[in-house]
């Protein structure tokens, strides 16, 4: 049973991680919370659902659809909700409020378009069940794990091996110096939004495939979890977000399994508080928060 619970936690945690990475990437370059990121995740899930329902394509196409639509939405949000405010000088509150507003607009638009009820992927997407004795897993779940980890590995390679990735890391360490050294930081910020949002969109499709609960309000809980994970992992640290996401997923599942379901959120935020008490800058401190 413990092994199955750990598998359950891994399923949940890998999607948490993808969402939390988005928060960390954006916090890294802007030092701001993107409070519509949960809604980007939600729109990604709907995009995947539409690809499947309207164009009768498979799960890979759904993931791709979620990735593209969410990535474009991320760029639009940066252009509409963040850049105009940034242009008018440093203001920490205004972009937070404008991103909350953008999130509400997205929720309302999706409610108008698709209704407030939950929607699910067609039943053939449940996949075959493999009972391996100690654990059982479906083909869809294997797909989800593979996609989630492949996305994280791809991101890791991108930020460490490519000059664009190096530029994102440099910008997130010090936007001003990066700019002086010839990096077009506006472009890097936009690119960061696109990547963060694309990962959120992938997570949305994966959650939709796994839990079959696509609704305009699915991003709300995910957003608070994503932020808690970012704090657990360390502000702006993508590896912290990966580790924190998996930790929280497994932790939540174990708390439900061995305590009670009502402790789920208490556990998530309790874990966050304990980590912050012991390591105030999170598990993978990045230096953000001391500088600037």
């Amino acid at each position, binding site marked *: 049973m413990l092994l199955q619970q750990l598998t359950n936690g891994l399923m949940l945690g890998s999607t948490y991680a993808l969402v939390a990475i988005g928060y960390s990437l954006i916090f890294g370059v802007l030092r701001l919370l993107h409070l519509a990121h949960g809604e980007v995740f939600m729109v990604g899930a709907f995009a995947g659902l539409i690809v499947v329902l309207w164009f009768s394509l498979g799960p890979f196409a759904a993931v791709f659809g979620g990735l593209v639509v969410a990535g474009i939405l991320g760029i639009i949000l940066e252009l509409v909700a963040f850049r105009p405010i940034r242009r008018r000088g440093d203001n920490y509150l205004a972009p937070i409020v404008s991103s909350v507003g953008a999130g509400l607009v997205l929720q309302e638009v999706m409610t108008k378009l698709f209704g407030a009820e939950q929607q699910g992927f067609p039943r053939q997407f449940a996949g075959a069940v493999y009972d391996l004795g100690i654990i059982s897993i479906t083909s869809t779940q294997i797909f989800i794990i593979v996609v989630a980890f492949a996305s994280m590995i791809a991101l890791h390679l991108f930020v460490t091996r490519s000059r664009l990735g190096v530029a994102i890391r440099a910008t997130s360490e010090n936007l001003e110096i990066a*700019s002086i050294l010839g990096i077009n930081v506006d472009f890097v910020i936009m690119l960061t939004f696109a990547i963060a949002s694309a990962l959120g969109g992938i997570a949305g499709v994966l959650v939709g495939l796994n839990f079959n609960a696509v609704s305009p309000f699915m991003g709300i809980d995910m957003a608070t979890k994503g932020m808690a994970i970012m704090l657990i992992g360390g502000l702006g640290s993508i590896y912290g977000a990966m580790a924190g996401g998996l930790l929280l997923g497994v932790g939540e599942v174990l708390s439900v399994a061995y305590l009670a379901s009502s402790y789920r959120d208490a556990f998530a935020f309790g874990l966050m508080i304990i980590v912050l008490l012991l390591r105030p800058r999170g598990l993978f401190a990045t230096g953000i928060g001391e500088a600037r």
Partner: protein
Amino acid sequence: MTPLLQVTHLTRRFGGYTALADVSCDVAAGTIHALIGPNGAGKTTLFNIVSGVLRPTTGTLVYEGRDYTGTRADQVFAMGVARNFQQVRLFKGLSIVENVMIGCHARMGGLVRDLANLALPKPATEIAARRRALEMLELVGMGSRTTGLPQELTLVDQRRLEIARALASTPKLLLLDEPAAGMNPTEVRELAELVRRIVALGITVLLVEHHMRFVMAIADTITVLSAGRIIAQGPPDVIQKDQGVITAYLGPAP
């Protein structure tokens, strides 16, 4: 021949405080031009204006015959004006080579083309950038220290690394802000050689420095700033004898 950089009637005020007042000077291509003056004379402010970090209150900046007053820092960098920092500012989260690679961005097709290149299995620019970064480390005498993080280096090596980063962008004008600070006599000698090697590559150097022996040894032209104004300009032997400069540094004769 038109000078590489022309600074004309430059004034910069911070609130009521005037950091630079009506400063004009030309930097000739292929020369080493030093900027000296007591603390608070406005040297770093002038550097920040030339590199696009600060905007002048009034006055114009011309580079290669083109007015670039008010241009954003990253675009100034892309034009070929690279710099280091008085307080070393390296990226702690990036490895030594990656820090140098940052400098390559502006000069190698820009980020948008990188994005297109990303789809290719082995993007040519990626390889070229890494190779160039290693060459620049070799040039500044750090060929043996390419891995690891910059904070593991001595302060002197960190300064060299910053110079390598600036050179990676293939600049035409290199701004060096107190490169000799904290160096022992041997290291200062090595630095002088490095600056000469840089000029030999066809790069013009504008430097701010307190180390007088170093300045006098390598500079072709010296501009002396005091309290935001130019008090003298000329070759080292002229400046050394200038009464105004001596007064500015030592105080008026009793």
